[in-house]
């Protein structure tokens, strides 16, 4: 098993966190993982992406040039990375923010209205967790509960009350994948 992922979007959409939680959950389940961020000098705004690898083998190069999965939260990210995905790979599109379709027919495209579902849940900040749930629903590379464990470690016990909302978000995202 080797998963080469790129998560991309605007700064502030939580794309780096999505990748970190996946990498941490992978580690907790005994996999080799790596996470590489790429962003500009801005505190917020601008574009951000991260490369995340999960593997049963030792990870040689942690750089992801040909992703097996691409997760995009905004349109410029789709346009930038669409052509890099390996044939047969997956592209997860935040259809709340992206008004175009995936133009390739040799990849699997999944459209997830992240911001709309997040609004239904009453907190726009979990749109990234909805998308991460969709990714997990397809790739099944780590358990949802392990991701929540990783999130709890990051938040600390003081913010443990946020876990049920995030669980709901991950499950709603996963349910978008048929």
């Amino acid at each position, binding site marked *: 098993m080797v998963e080469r992922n790129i998560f991309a979007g605007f700064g502030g959409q939580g794309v780096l966190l999505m990748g970190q939680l996946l990498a941490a959950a992978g580690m907790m389940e005994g996999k080799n993982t790596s996470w590489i961020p790429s962003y500009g000098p801005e505190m917020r705004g601008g574009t951000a992406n991260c490369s995340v690898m999960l593997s049963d083998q030792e990870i040689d190069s942690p750089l992801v040039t*040909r992703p097996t999965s691409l997760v995009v939260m905004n349109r410029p990210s789709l346009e930038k990375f669409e052509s890099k995905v390996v044939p047969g790979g997956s592209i997860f599109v935040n259809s709340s923010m992206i008004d175009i379709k995936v133009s390739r027919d040799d990849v699997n495209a999944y459209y997830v209205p992240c911001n709309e579902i997040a609004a239904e849940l009453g907190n726009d900040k979990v749109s990234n967790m909805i998308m991460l749930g969709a990714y997990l629903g397809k790739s099944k590379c780590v358990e949802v509960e392990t991701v929540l464990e990783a999130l709890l470690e990051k938040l600390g016990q003081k913010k443990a009350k946020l876990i049920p909302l995030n669980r709901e978000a991950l499950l709603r995202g996963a349910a978008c994948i048929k």
Partner: protein
Amino acid sequence: MALKLMKGCEAIAEAAIQAGCRYFFGYPITPQNDIPEYMSLRLPQVGGCFLQAESELAAINMVYGAAGAGARVMTSSSSPGISLKQEGISTCCAAELPCVIVNMMRGGPGLGNIQASQGDYFQATKGGGHGDYHTIVIAPSSIQETVNMMGKAFDLAEEYRIPVMILADGLIGQMMEPVDMPNNPNPTMHDKPWAATGYKPGGAKQRAIINSLYIETEDLDTLEERLQNRYAVIRGKEVMVETYNTEGAEYILCAYGTVARVCKAAVRLCAEQGVKVGLVRPITLWPFPTKEVHDAIAQDSVKAALTVEVSAGQMYEDVRLAVNGCKEVAFMGKAGSMIPAAEDIAERILKMRRA
């Protein structure tokens, strides 16, 4: 073994503390700010001192002072900041002061950018400051290896009374990987009878003088002879290198740091095409693994070698010196921050094979 997902910069800082480092002096610059940030939190917790200096120049001279008093001390910066520290590094070498300097390389020259680069190889290995000196230069290629090297870096520094530089590309500082952090409450410290720790007239201890000025020609000659003899010992004993898949290979890749990991992926891609490629990865850039690089490339089975760097070709010169004309050595890479993709490196090897 408890693994923790850690950012490279934070892992380096924690590993330094585990290695007994209690003093850190620095000045902010991206992409290494997580090192001083982490140190500012952790050093007071372990009874150490973190101080943000007013400049890089001040920081390296604070390192000089702490090292002269026998402390385990480090500083970190990134390329333009390391340039500013060069005078102090030369002075530490002349005064024979042990310290650890981390350079999280970014793109240059000038202020360049804030992405990963390998453009400081010449500066690190050939002496970025003035005079005939060397620092030991260690170039790890993963966060775990960087962590494992921190203790070694302090030990080497104190054993040889020499500054040791950790030369990492910015990627190692910014990325996250699972880390097995050593837990070492009592690291071994070397005896430092030479340290300036206070002098009592008539006491048992001789007056300790930390100095880099030798006005008399003969005096400077004595220092230089001592340093050069020490460098010869280091060259003989402290080379670190990884060879991967080199035995009987048709082509040899030569790379260090993160780029060496990309090259490992290229070795795998070439193997899938039925082409046997090996990799030589210098871990110490100074002393350079001249013999190991030569022996890997000089094998009868090898048609040519390819050095890959994120520079315009710096380590390339040392590889060619090591090979000494016995085989063709090609170069792949660009100055700045464009890291070649594994697919492109493999393609280049396959192209060399078709030619």
